[in-house]
């Protein structure tokens, strides 16, 4: 911003110019949107502390339903599911964070080393495709492979003389399937983020390294990786900040909401949705409240850590 004359600065503070009026007019629609779709729900959080009934008007319901304090939370944490859900949510997220960083970084470095640029573009485009598919479509894709009587996997098992597996009833396979699908969907996207950083590295570093006789492995180890480190740390911290949130589509759509898979595929988001749909509002709103608050705390702490490492990359 260019320096403004002192006089103008002082005037700005006191008078409401025509310009400010017009800009406010321009901002009103989006501000209303924010109030309706972001801020009203923040106050709606109060229903976690109430015995809420679904029928009738929303506001009168919120006002009239009896205050129960932390009863809903007690129910939530006393249920047997609480432990499974916390384990699933955090456990999958830890695996996703690790695989979501190691593999894309590895592939981004590898694809940068390919001799043929055209081939590398083609691979990138092909690997980007799953990112653009919705979970409903992916669940249809999954069905084509995992269906018990018609699925391709069971036909293959039959061909090699193996008994067919009822995939949607066997919880032991699903942690692997879910992790693989998550990698499959996100690999192209992750790779491109790191590749963008690699392509932005000043080529004179490599030039100097080559003159000093560094091999391509030494260049990767001493130039590419150290310069990627900052982005890697940022991506790591940002994903840690989302550790209480999971991809609802992955856990709900792809598993086709199969009851046999409850123990391995129920995360906080799935629980909240199911409780909401089965009208167990108390527990659902308590779970959603815990998720929001813990989410807020982790995001703020992640941001605080980012600020320590690199002040420019912090959100706030």
């Amino acid at each position: 911003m260019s320096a403004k004359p002192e006089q103008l600065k002082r005037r700005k503070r006191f008078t409401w110019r025509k310009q400010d009026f017009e800009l406010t007019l321009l901002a009103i629609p989006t501000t209303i949107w924010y109030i309706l779709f972001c801020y009203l729900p923040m106050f709606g959080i109060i229903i976690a502390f109430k015995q809420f009934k679904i029928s009738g008007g929303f506001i009168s319901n919120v006002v009239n339903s009896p205050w129960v304090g932390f009863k809903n939370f007690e129910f939530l944490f006393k249920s047997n599911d609480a432990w499974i859900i916390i384990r699933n949510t955090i456990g999958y997220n830890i695996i996703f964070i690790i695989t979501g960083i190691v593999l894309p970084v590895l592939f981004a470095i590898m694809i940068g080393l390919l001799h043929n640029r055209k081939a590398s573009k083609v691979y990138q485009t092909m690997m980007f495709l799953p990112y653009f598919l919705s979970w409903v479509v992916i669940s249809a894709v999954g069905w084509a492979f995992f269906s018990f009587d018609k699925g391709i996997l069971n036909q293959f098992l039959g061909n090699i003389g193996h008994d067919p597996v009822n995939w949607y009833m066997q919880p032991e396979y699903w942690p692997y399937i879910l992790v693989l699908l998550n990698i499959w969907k996100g690999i192209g996207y992750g790779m491109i983020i790191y590749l963008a950083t690699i392509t932005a590295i000043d080529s004179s570093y490599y030039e100097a390294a080559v003159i000093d006789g560094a091999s391509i492995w030494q260049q990767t180890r001493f130039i590419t990786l150290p310069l990627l480190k900052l982005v890697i740390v940022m991506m790591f911290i940002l994903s840690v900040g989302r550790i209480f949130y999971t991809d609802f589509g992955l856990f709900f759509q792809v598993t086709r909401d199969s009851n046999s898979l409850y123990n391995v595929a129920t995360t906080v988001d799935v629980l909240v949705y199911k409780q909401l749909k089965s009208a167990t509002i108390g527990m659902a709103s308590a779970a959603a409240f815990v998720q929001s608050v813990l989410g807020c705390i982790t995001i703020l702490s992640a941001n605080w850590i980012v600020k320590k490492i690199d002040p420019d990359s912090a959100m706030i």
Partner: protein
Amino acid sequence: MATKTYESGLDKFNRTSKGINILFNTIFLVIALACVVPVIVVLSISLTNESYIRDVGYSIFPADFSFEAYSFIAKQGTMILRALGTSTLVTVVGTVLGVLLTTSMGYVISRPSYKLKSFLTWIVFIPMVFNGGLVSSYFINANLLGLKDSFWALILPLAVSSFNVIICKTFFTSTIPDGVIESAEIDGANQIRIFFSIILPISLPVLATIGLFLCFSYWNDWFQSMLYIDNPNLYSLQALLNNLMTNADALARNAQSMGVSSAELIAKMPKESARMAVAILIILPVACAYPFFQRYFISGLTVGAVKG
């Protein structure tokens, strides 16, 4: 330019041996195929004769080629066509509305001398950190705002994302010279006019980025339908496929039977291939469009990474 460094830098000093290069190429070929082949499988199932699927099962290559599913969709699938219409309309209206709401807010908070700048920046920023959660959002949208079973339930909740607003703000602060706006002000244009006839036309890169993000997220959305839509006439393609995944007869039950009883229709209809044909109907536009827009996405990701 970043890409130039890439080509002249890494390329020039790219000294991996031939063997390693072949190994890497093989690895990428396998992964790239693993990303694409499942979609091709869905396509080939949609093109397979229903009786073959019933007897043998799904296959990677269309073993018994037939357009049965697609001709069923064209002839019988009023519901599919309506869902296609809903999806298209939601995508178009949502994208236009979303772009307008996002860019106008981005522009306003990018004006350094605007009085409410910091207040509005906080309005945008707070939801990035804290949200009301699914339950209270659901009740606000469904009960208070009356969006249950309404077309707007598919559009409004997804229209603005703070992340996109920040991308716009960053773009406006970093690329639009103050002089352009000042000279327009001197010529007597008001801010609204400046925004629509000067700022938007010269901001095509960011409009394309945000527009594409919104476009793909509207087209791919199924969650809003699952939450708010019970009326089958308002199903989007995603909601319809979602329904078909749990119940393949859903289509026949809701389709207008042209002279045939619905029981007859259920018996006749190519359930398995029709299900995959709907999936293809969803995938096809996305798969055709994204390679052309890939660079906008990449630039969008990089713009997002730069803090304003």
